């Protein structure tokens, strides 16, 4: 009791001291700005800007190297040369199973370019330094945005739609310029959460749900959790960000690096959590640590994607597009209501049929971080499902792990003569080739192919496609991690994965069958013996021992 009393007094004293210091600090020191510069005080920004590039010019008058740095990034170039396969990838080159390709649809697609005025995919982005859009990443006023079809320019009047699909408002460029700071999730999210033409359409694990996620949706980004911004993990150096879908760090044996150092060159789980993240002194922890060389962290810790009430598009059939309703107007259907109550299109005359999913269980595959794209010069077999981006990896290469993916199921246009995936001009309010305006595939594909400078046979068809999106966001609380039994069971989540022995997946393996045979032989021997004893004893008039 005496010791307890003493401890209580010490605790009370300690708390009192902390409280006293806290009160003193609050009373005396003014709120210190994190930055050494308050941009609202800079004379360069005390003016009304008439355009985005004007703001950029003001930024560059101090940040002289910023534009050059940005221009070396994939955010700017939309081009990525895969160091392993040599393939030239990036948005300006690849075909996807959503809106297809950028070429011939520029001003719509480049609305999310981190620049102003890129209107021709056959040429690099505009060369002027002021074509870089600083504000899209650095605005913290929350009222900067880009129009959905103005090649990256912001709305200066309340007309049209923004890149998130909202009705546009007149952006106050002065306010935005004076607010600049480090990118927050609103900056990254305004493009990356809306890829593919809408909220969470493309990735499945990147949606507007991540602006204010609950702990159950994302432990890292939730305010109840770590409250990370995107760039906490996607660290940047000279405007180039860690973490690329084109060259994924599928296995990171380096972990946290040397003691006292924080690895900032990668966006892997291991760079913070290390390579043995589970409790080392428990059977379960040791067993889980045994898994990390074969199973990506994401595989267990993201039990499903498209969580938090926002669905992701899981299927898109372009071949059914073009249907008109009774009045001759483009038909549309909204037969899917997602978790947050919003009804989603399941058919649009402009785009065809859609399928949606929420809390989707991923597709799993061995992945070494490389993806082989089916670019438009590759001959495809239209009788088979074409893999838009083939996941590379094997259990034997020593650098693959089993990863979760969103598997997008598409049906999209291809050149039926040359058996190439096709470009299509879908967007173009004033052209007579754009599919969304004229509903004529022949013209749309011809125009798309011409814009991309590709040969076109003149015949087109539709081919089934699969496209894979590595799932790595929306990490759930540890208590929600995939239960062992979800995989360690017959026909579990890993069904179809080869190259690992998965206990529990086959109760009738050869060893089990041999053992069961022995067991049954012994058990039936016992049974036979029992029956014989009963019969013979009965015959002997119930004679028993002693």
């Amino acid at each position: 009791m005496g010791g307890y009393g003493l401890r209580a007094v010490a605790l009370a004293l300690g708390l009192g001291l902390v409280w006293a210091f806290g009160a003193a600090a609050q009373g005396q020191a003014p709120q210190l700005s994190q930055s050494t510069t308050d941009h609202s005080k800079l004379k360069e920004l005390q003016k009304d800007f008439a355009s985005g590039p004007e703001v950029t010019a003001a930024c560059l008058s101090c940040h002289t190297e910023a534009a050059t740095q940005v221009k070396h990034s994939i955010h700017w170039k939309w081009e990525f040369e895969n160091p392993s396969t040599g393939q030239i990838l990036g948005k300006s080159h690849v075909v996807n199973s959503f809106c297809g390709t950028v070429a011939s649809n520029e001003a719509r697609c480049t609305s999310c370019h981190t620049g102003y005025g890129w209107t021709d995919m056959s040429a690099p982005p505009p060369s002027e330094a002021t074509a870089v859009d600083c504000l899209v990443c650095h605005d913290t006023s929350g009222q900067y945005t880009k129009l959905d079809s103005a090649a990256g320019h912001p709305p200066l009047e309340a007309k049209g739609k923004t890149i998130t699909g909202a009705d546009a408002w007149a952006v106050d460029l002065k306010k935005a310029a004076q607010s600049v700071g480090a990118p927050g999730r609103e900056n990254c999210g305004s493009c990356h959460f809306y890829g593919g033409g809408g909220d969470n359409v493309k990735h499945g694990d990147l949606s507007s749900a991540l602006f204010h996620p609950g702990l159950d949706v994302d432990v890292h980004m939730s305010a109840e959790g770590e409250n990370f911004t995107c760039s906490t993990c996607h660290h940047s150096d000279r405007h180039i960000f860690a973490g690329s879908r084109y060259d994924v760090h599928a296995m990171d044996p380096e972990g946290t690096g040397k003691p006292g150092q924080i690895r900032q060159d990668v966006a892997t789980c291991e760079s913070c959590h290390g390579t043995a993240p589970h409790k080392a002194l428990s059977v379960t922890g040791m067993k889980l640590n045994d898994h990390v060389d074969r199973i990506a962290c994401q595989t267990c810790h993201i039990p499903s994607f498209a969580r938090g009430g926002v669905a992701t598009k899981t299927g898109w059939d372009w071949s059914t597009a073009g249907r008109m309703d009774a009045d001759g107007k483009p038909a549309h259907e909204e037969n899917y209501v997602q978790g947050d109550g919003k009804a989603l299109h399941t058919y649009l005359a402009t785009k065809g049929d859609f399928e949606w999913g929420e809390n989707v269980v991923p597709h799993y595959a061995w992945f070494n971080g490389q993806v082989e794209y089916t670019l438009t010069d590759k001959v495809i077999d239209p009788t088979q499902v074409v893999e838009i981006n083939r996941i590379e990896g094997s259990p034997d290469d020593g650098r693959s792990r089993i990863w979760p993916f969103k598997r997008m199921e598409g049906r999209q246009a291809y050149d039926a003569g040359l058996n190439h995936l096709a470009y299509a001009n879908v967007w173009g309010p004033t052209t007579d080739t754009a599919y969304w305006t004229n509903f004529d595939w022949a013209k749309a594909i011809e125009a798309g192919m011409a814009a991309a400078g590709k040969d076109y046979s003149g015949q087109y068809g539709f081919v089934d496609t699969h496209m894979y999106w590595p799932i790595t966001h929306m990490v759930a609380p540890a208590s929600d991690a995939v239960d062992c039994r979800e995989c360690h069971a017959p026909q579990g989540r890993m069904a179809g994965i080869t190259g690992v022995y998965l206990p529990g997946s086959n109760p009738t393996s050869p060893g089990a069958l041999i053992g069961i045979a022995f067991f049954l032989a012994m058990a039936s021997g016992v049974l036979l013996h029992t029956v014989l004893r009963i019969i013979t004893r009965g015959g002997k008039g119930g004679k028993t021992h002693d």
Partner: protein
Amino acid sequence: MTDDAVKPPAPFERGLTPCPDCAEREVLIYPRFERLWHWSQAGSIVVLMFTGLGMNGVHGLISFELAVRLHTIVALALLLLWVFATFWLVTTGSWKVFLPRVLGLFAVARYYAYGVFKGEHHPYQKSLAQRLNPLQAMAYSALKTVVFPLVWGTGLVYLTYNFWETLPNAPFLLEVVANIHLAVAYIVSGFVILHIYLLTIGHSFRDGVRPMITGTEKVALTPEQEAYLERHETWRLVD
């Protein structure tokens, strides 16, 4: 016991013939450690079978995680017990009861295959030094030298996979090891069934189990053995 070397045990000592001048006395023949060993092992095997079947996907009465945890901890504890038991068997010389022997084997086998149906008495008479009949001794020696080592050997190799996973074909080897472990584990379950069933042959099931609880059982004592126990180890004599 230098006499052992000079004089071979009498036939009755090996359970071959009834001992003419022996007295049947209730004597402590299963010391406390042996009983503790037996029941710990029995409990462990039940837990290992239940958790093993759970992990193998035969039933879902227990979470996989708990099954793995229990299976691992209980198996390691049982291995530790076996280390102690082996030490005990060697130092006390009790290991000799498990030596397989041919003499009398046929009589016991004949009893289980035929005599038991005729209402005959069990041909083996337990003695102070040999409580196992030749068939039991053979079965236990097979269990201890082949079956159990296969189970815990494969179990340890399985458990330490992470130390040898860099071997070529490691996943396949692991599958082989796991399958052997599984097959032998089922055979152990068969032994358990047999073991329990054999208790029903004889006086009664309860009488069969009792000695392993109280430690005492009726065995044949020569007058000399009886006199020795009466004088020096009265605590081993119950009545």
